[in-house]
């Protein structure tokens, strides 16, 4: 009897929790649907680099004009197609290097793995089969 009660209570709490999450995310969507909420993953020239709009807007306080369309074209994939989306360009102040210069934000030639999520990170995000076994 006690067990049944506990299970019932558990189910109730879970459903409440789920509802909470749904209502929260709905509220967020209403307020800020003006930027992509999913992180962008670049695969050129190396696999893979992550860019999260959320962090740059909410934590760093940037807005759309900060980067678009001077530093980055708004159309997805443009930077990767340009052929100069490289670390060298970043060091010259292009693309991410416009801010990641050691002054405004951490320098492009430091803390590599903050942005570089690698093949393992890419596989995790895209749920590639066998990704788990590679992580040990």
């Amino acid at each position, binding site marked *: 009897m006690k067990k049944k009660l506990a299970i019932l209570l558990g189910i109730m709490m879970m459903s409440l929790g789920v509802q909470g999450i749904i209502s929260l995310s709905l509220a967020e969507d209403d307020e800020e649907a003006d930027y992509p909420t999913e992180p962008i993953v670049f695969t050129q020239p*190396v696999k893979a680099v992550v860019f999260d709009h959320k962090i740059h807007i909410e934590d760093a306080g940037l807005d759309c004009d900060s980067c678009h369309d001077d530093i980055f074209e708004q159309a997805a994939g443009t930077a990767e197609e340009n052929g100069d989306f490289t670390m060298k360009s970043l060091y010259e102040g292009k693309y991410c290097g416009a801010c990641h210069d050691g002054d405004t934000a951490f320098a492009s030639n430091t803390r590599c793995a903050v942005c570089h999520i*690698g093949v*393992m990170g890419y596989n995790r995000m895209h749920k590639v089969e066998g990704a788990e076994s590679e992580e040990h």
Partner: protein
Amino acid sequence: MKIEDLEKMRNEGPESLPSEERRKFLKMGLVVTGVFAGGSVLSLTSARNVYGMLEGIQLKHYPYKPHYSMVIRQDRCIDCERCKEACVKTNNVPEYGYRTTILEREIPIGPEETQREFMPVLCNHCNQPPCVRVCPTKATYKDKKTGIVMMNYKKCIGCKTCMAACPYNARYFNEEKRAIDKCNFCFDTRLSKGEKLTACAAACPADVRIFGDLSDPESRVYKLIHEPERVVWVLRPETGAMPNVYYTKG
């Protein structure tokens, strides 16, 4: 014991102290500079003034010519895995095994804050290779000239004892060869054909894997390891295997 008494004693040298023990002091910001009376009295100094540090590494002489070695500049690795791709292509490595791979971990960098770190691993071509010691058929051996830990596939009986003995998990059983396979610094596929770098080192876009002859003072590996102020370490020094793959940052 008084300092004057200690000064009169013979310094037995910190080498006799296990590296694990030395690590403990290093974590406290101290370096063992001497061992007295069988290790019961230690002479310590602040690590702040110590320049480059070689953790668990004994650099006395390099017994091979060329003494092949790799220095991994760990913090530069971005897990693009071009090294893995190049290795697979060059050495015909099957999908179920690897000669080199990348490990991943989150390292704490502050309160509640971590940072991703990638770590390339491969055979460490140890000077005292545990795999060679345990092989019952001498199928795996230390090449007398280059120091590369090699495989004689014909002699291998597939008992996998070497796999269990390896501190670096650098061996796998190759179903096609019916033998253990492992990294040999691309000796058969590249070095013996005049190439200067292993496939993984040549493929790395971030200059993580520095390969060369440790006995040559002009080589990049020698210069990196002997650079003052640079901290260099090896993996699992406590096994006493004396690896030839070194790790550093920056």
